[in-house]
């Protein structure tokens, strides 16, 4: 519709009156960035606007010289008559929903979000609006997450069991967001925590933002020996699976933390001993609750189960349609996507041993390939 505040263009989601884009995937003059995951924050834009807590990661990834303006949550600026403000999305540190107000209309673009608070970033806040642009990564009712408490009880029990049996506990997880969430949530009294070189720089960013993380070790630190590793929880990006870096852990137990682990098929395909159901994205009830919470009568659905969500929302009386985007899902980082390299692998991996290798992959359910 001609009056829409956000429309889909080949470059990305575009706001015509404001003449800027939200998370564009091709280089543009002005980009509002919802969060620093690489499929949302890409290189080559002339101006960036993002949340204050995203500044560190964005600069590390995209270069110190990017033209970056930052806002706190709830703080607003006006651009060509469009009032722009950022609101917590609960996805990762600095993640924001973008609220646009113009000519009496209010639109909110969610970026990626998660409704359950996890203690490592500002919890999701429903923002009242007329039109809501929602992600749909886990847009099927089979996806219902365990509570934080139940999840960490499981991870702790697994770690404790391994430590008692003298086996390292290697937990594969995405380096930005999920790793810090695990660090924040586990019972660090069980044993030492070792992190892969791709994870530690992100820990520094979180610590700088005031998030409490336990002490973390690197395998190259002095005093690290085989006896210590046998009791350790090791956090590594999925790309480390099957690489020589893993050899030092000997006969270790491994696990994978991802929302996709909800399904038995994906768990088994992943080829690890355990799958922990843990996602930075909203589960099905979370998506429904978030959409209802905005009071929006119109909903655009992006990346994930677009067709399913559009049909479901339409049947429930909302005006829903899909937006085709090129966002992926960071749970899915090894799957080739048009976005090329993703954070966590390309970024800040000064660990010389952490070179790539044959990676098993996850399904691409989260990719924006399911056009309605």
């Amino acid at each position: 519709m001609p009056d829409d505040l956000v429309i889909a263009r080949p470059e990305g989601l575009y706001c015509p009156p404001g003449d800027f884009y939200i998370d564009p995937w091709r280089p543009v003059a002005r980009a509002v960035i919802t969060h620093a995951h690489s499929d949302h924050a890409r290189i080559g834009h002339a101006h960036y606007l993002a949340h204050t807590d995203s500044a560190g990661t964005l600069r590390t990834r995209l270069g110190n010289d990017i033209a970056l303006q930052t806002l706190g949550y709830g703080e607003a600026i006006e651009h060509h008559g469009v009032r722009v403000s950022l609101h917590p999305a609960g996805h990762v540190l600095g993640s924001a929903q973008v609220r646009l107000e113009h000519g009496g209309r209010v639109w909110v673009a969610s970026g990626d979000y998660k409704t359950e608070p996890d203690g490592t970033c500002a919890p999701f806040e429903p923002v009242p609006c007329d039109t809501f642009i929602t992600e749909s990564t886990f847009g099927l009712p089979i996806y219902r997450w365990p509570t934080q408490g139940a999840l960490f009880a499981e991870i702790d029990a697994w770690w404790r069991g391994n430590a008692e049996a003298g086996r390292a506990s290697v937990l594969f997880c995405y380096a930005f967001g999920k790793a810090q969430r695990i660090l924040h949530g586990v019972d660090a009294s069980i044993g030492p925590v070792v992190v892969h070189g791709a994870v530690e720089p992100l820990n520094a960013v979180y610590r700088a933002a005031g998030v409490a993380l336990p002490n973390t070790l690197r395998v190259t630190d002095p005093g690290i020996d085989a006896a210590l590793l046998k009791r350790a929880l090791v956090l590594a990006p999925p790309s480390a699976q099957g690489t020589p870096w893993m050899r030092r852990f000997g006969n270790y137990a491994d696990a994978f933390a991802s929302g996709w682990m909800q399904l038995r098929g994906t768990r088994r395909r992943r080829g690890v001993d355990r799958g922990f159901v843990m996602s930075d994205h909203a589960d099905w009830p979370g998506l429904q609750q978030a959409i209802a919470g905005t009071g929006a009568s119109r909903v655009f659905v992006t990346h994930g189960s677009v067709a399913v969500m559009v049909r479901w929302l339409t049947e429930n009386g909302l005006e829903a349609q899909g937006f085709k985007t090129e966002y992926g899902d960071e749970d899915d980082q090894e799957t080739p996507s048009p976005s090329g390299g993703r954070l966590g692998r390309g970024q800040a991996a000064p660990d010389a041993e952490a070179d790539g290798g044959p990676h098993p992959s996850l399904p691409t359910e989260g990719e924006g390939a399911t056009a309605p």
Partner: protein
Amino acid sequence: MKDFAALYRELDASTSSLAKQAALQRYLREADPVDAAWAVYFLAGGKPRQLVPNKLLRLLAQEAAGLPEWLFDESYEAVGDLAETIALLLPPPTEAHDLGLARWVEEHLLPLRDAGKSAPDELPARLRAQWRQLAAEERLVYFKLITGAFRVGVSKLQVTQALAAVGGIDPKRVAQRLMGYTHIGGRPRAEDYRALIAPESGAEQVQKTSGQPYPFFLAHAFNLPLEQFDAVLGPPADWIVEWKWDGIRAQLVKRAGAVWLWSRGEELVTERFPELAVLGEALPDGTVLDGEIAVWREDRVQPFAELQKRIGRKTLGAKLLREIPVVLLAYDILEWEGRDLRMLPQWERRALLDELVTRVQHPALLPSPMLTGIEWSDLARQREAARSMGVEGMMLKRRDAQYGVGRTKDVGVWWKWKIDPLSIDAVLIYAQRGHGRRASLYSDYTFAVWDGPPGQDDRKLVPFAKAYSGLTDAEMARVDAIIRKTTVESFGPVRSVEPTLVFELGFEGIARSARHKSGIAVRFPRMLRWREDKPVAEADTLQTLAALLPS
């Protein structure tokens, strides 16, 4: 029920057979024998008759989850398993229970079948009352027992081994005792379980009456170029040469009036091949033959696919037995008149075998013919006929070889000299999601070849084979991503895609077929490799495929 669900989860989660074995043994040691009896029944492949129609189950689950049918179907498609889908969709339990597996099966599950007949109106309420008590983990197992899709990556052999370890007895003995245990109407009791793991009785141990087979002697692959044969093997005269049959390796044991047929996996398959059981009865006591089970019709061996039709069947009707008759292609004799012959040289055993076959004169017992040649090149020429004969190549057995144990080479050696598979470059045109481990992933593909030569403008791609194996997980994920980006149309679970992907397909056999659009059927197609280097226009044609047909 909780312990069994935990065992299921542990078996399912692990990729290591050692860990699975440990979990099985731990469960069996700790479980109440009443429950262990049922656990063994299910794990070893037992399936009660259908308890609840799947349709009703779907309907009730949909209703309980408050979902429209289409959304239930979408969920099912993503999960790939009905029991798991339902377990994921139902609202959380509102009650608790502390019943063991046996009581759940006997008091709750099995009565559902009769309830469905006598009081179908009450069935929904009964089911709801049952699943309300079960935690998510138990529900998966509960629904799997109902839908009959109880597979957990544990073979009957692994269960046999666990029982043997718990009882401290020979796994082959357990396999014998397990015969009939997983019968469809079976109601295993605690004493049945105890009998499985009891110490061997005196009668069981007497070789004369025992049904035990000998450990199979296994062959090694031989792939050297022909020029090196003389240097490595010596002259053909030192060898017994036979066709390598594409069937099921088996030992037929006849002792004390009873017959046992063992497959190479040390699995008892007597009940699946009644005609070989009849043959066994015609043999004198104290005889053990080694050979290959194969379908034999019109004086020749039939493709393995024919044999598969029989393996897959639960009940063997007279019609099936008539249409797909099997024989034992015997090539060795391991016991004669109660004496272990394995130390005799191959040629002596073979002579004895031939004598026996001639004497018995049974239509289901054929000697695997011996092939002769002065030079290896003579045999190589005969081997060229392997494909058209439906065999995999040749077996080379040293004339003086004893019958060893497993893959040993110290007392003699058997070589398998196999032919290369046929192959063709084909284009992926349809994709379908897989099941189980591959649910959510487009992993089952239909392949096509061109119906005209390159340059012909109006040529089309004609589908000719389906394949789903041969790719690594990483390759499959990449192919899956491409399929999603190049989808033309979706028909239910199937997508048609733009032809962009070329694969080298290998297959074991090829034949004309009126049932296939291409007019050709191939056997055991699988992906040998992804030809990322090859443009679609250079894929093979129907003509190249037809040229592979045996004349």
